[in-house]
């Protein structure tokens, strides 16, 4: 962590483009966080049909003009930035955590290092359907049919009780059987690679569009789909880095001192994964911003009640001479993407030079 901060400080001192990008991003973050407190004259969804398609810089009340429903472009730009970043950053954070976890475990254990006894494998295979039924399926049914909450509570208690019985009572009994105490290696790496291959077998935008179609525009569903498709990039990167790190002598030294695998991964290996993961994170936020506004432009991203750069841009279809509806949000979007890409570019260059 300390090395990473000193890297940033070094880049800030020497690279003017990096400094510019960081300043821009810091200003944008501040603006987005403080937006509800700012005294904007209009809310992004406030209609004014008398003043549709106002040109920018002519009307002092609508500084950046209005769209086809008379919504103020300035407040739509700012709220669009807020909505875009409020989706992109948490989604990418979760996908980066998920991707790093999967990639690091896959790279560290490979196909032969993680061993489980037959009893454990058996119990895991039994526990998964129990968890799915009692802890996921039944509560979801309760929500779907609005049944009394007591049912969901009973289901969760039953699920936890069954798992507890399996792991606390049945497992010691199974361990007494000679044959079930033998161990087999779990091909973690192979499983992770197959999973990534599965999710990338269809181009991401096509997958996003088709899955978004099934449930209609919804903020939560969009976030879940984005997380499911974006973690693979980080996972691949983290796995490749981990494969390299595991070969290094200091990991061998750590293991030879008797450290547990979990501690080796968390304390020794993960700090070295930091830079590539952060690069992937910054890059991912940029591409998420672009994907979100593309989907909103096509009408299958955010619900139409949410301000978004894509929503503002899509009103150009009704009036091709309203250039400001494309140029202003498009420029804002491109500038943000450019700043993020500049940051990740300099970080990559620095880590390559070392």
């Amino acid at each position: 962590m300390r090395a990473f901060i000193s890297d940033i400080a070094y880049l800030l001192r020497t690279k003017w483009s990096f400094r510019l990008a960081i300043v821009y991003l810091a200003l944008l973050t501040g603006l987005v966080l403080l937006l509800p407190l700012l005294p904007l004259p209009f809310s992004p969804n406030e209609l004014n049909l008398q003043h549709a398609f106002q040109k920018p810089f002519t009307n002092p009340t609508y500084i950046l003009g209005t769209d086809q429903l008379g919504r103020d472009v300035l407040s739509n730009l700012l709220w669009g930035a807020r909505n875009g970043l409020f989706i992109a950053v948490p989604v990418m954070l979760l996908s980066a955590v998920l991707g790093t976890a999967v990639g690091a475990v896959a790279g560290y254990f490979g196909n032969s290092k993680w061993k489980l006894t037959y009893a454990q494998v058996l119990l895991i295979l039994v526990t998964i359907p129990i968890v799915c039924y009692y802890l996921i399926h039944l509560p979801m049914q309760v929500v779907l049919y609005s049944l009394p909450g007591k049912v969901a509570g009973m289901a969760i208690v039953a699920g936890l009780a069954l798992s507890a019985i399996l792991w606390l009572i049945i497992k010691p009994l199974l361990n007494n059987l000679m044959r079930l105490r033998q161990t087999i290696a779990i091909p973690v790496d192979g499983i992770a690679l197959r999973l990534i291959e599965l999710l990338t077998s269809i181009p991401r935008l096509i997958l996003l569009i088709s899955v978004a179609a099934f449930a209609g525009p919804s903020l939560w569903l969009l976030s879940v789909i984005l997380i499911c498709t974006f973690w693979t990039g980080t996972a691949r990167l983290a796995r490749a880095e981990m494969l390299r790190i595991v070969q290094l002598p200091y990991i061998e030294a750590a293991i030879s001192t008797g450290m547990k695998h979990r501690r080796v991964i968390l304390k020794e290996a993960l700090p070295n994964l930091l830079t590539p993961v952060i690069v992937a994170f910054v890059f991912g936020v940029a591409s998420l911003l672009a994907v979100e506004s593309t989907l909103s432009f096509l009408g299958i991203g955010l619900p139409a009640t949410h301000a978004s750069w894509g929503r503002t841009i899509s009103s150009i279809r009704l009036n091709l001479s309203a250039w400001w509806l494309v140029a202003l949000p498009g420029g804002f979007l491109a500038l943000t993407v450019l700043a993020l890409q500049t940051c990740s570019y300099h970080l990559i260059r620095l880590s390559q030079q070392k």
Partner: protein
Amino acid sequence: MLQQPAIKRLLVAIPVIWFMVSAIFLLSRLLPGTYGETQLLSPEAGFYGKSLQTDRTAAYQQLLQRTGQDLPLFYISIAPLSEVHTATTFSYLVPDLEWHGTRNQYHHWAAALLTGHLGVSFTNSQPVSALIADAAGNTFLILLVSMVLTSVLAFYAGIAMVQDTGKKWRKPMLALLVLLDSIPLFVLCLLLLLLLANPDAWQLFPVFGLGLNLHDTQSNWVTQASYMVLPVACLVLANLPYLTNQVYTSLTGTLQAGYIKTARAKGLPHAKVVTRHALRNALLPVITTLSDMLPALFAGSVVIETIFAIPGVGRLLVSSVLSRDFPVIIGIVIVVALIKMVSHIVADVAYSAADPRIRARTA
């Protein structure tokens, strides 16, 4: 010998695609909101709103029966929780599994798929394969032209940048590419559209519809081509930065090699060193990039066809998404996944054909 790794990859890839497509099929039927539900069942004023509730329910049931959506989804199902179940006993804690045999939606769909039928569109009752085949020609033409143009331009720019004479272009060129890379495709399309095909600015090119609806007297290949300029330019500009960067990095990496020093030491001019010696080796990693580009180009064609109103596969996808026409969506997903798989395998074969070292290892 050459085909062996290709066949192996095919055998691995087919189950992966089958699993993914099945997951998408099941997901499309599991999530709430079937086709026609909102139109037929909603009590608000609409085309069907005036008729009686019972009539509308009957019409909805008929639609479900016609499209096969009244059958159970999968071979096994868990009976849904109902009030009767939960009021008194704890019987809901035991899963109520039900076996449906082969009379289920998934089985019918999968059986049809295996015999080559992609199903029938919900909206206009045409076979999905015919809809896709109609649209594929336009998409294919645009993708092919832009792929060739992008590759030619990327190689040209990459070679020019590593030449001694191109040194002064290198920095502004790379900066321009970074700038171009940060503009999302749909913004780029709209900007070009507003600048070059707009009565308010310059009206240089005709757009919208690829000139397919012109009368016979007007329609010849020159007018057709002028309709294609803007869409193709957008796709090329959007994919150029990445490919050029790949070519450039690959070339500069190759130029560090020992045999390049030998070539220079024997007095070859720099331009010849690049084209004769470096380019061949630099080509190798670019082959993989080219095959990765196809899905990106296809995703781009979704945006382009929507904006420029081109009747292609991407536009078909967006319109069927907006009308929730699941068979068409799933059909397009299958076709795209197959194309992606084939392009990967072709890239593998091309890679081993281009590099004798790989051929020797796999043989």
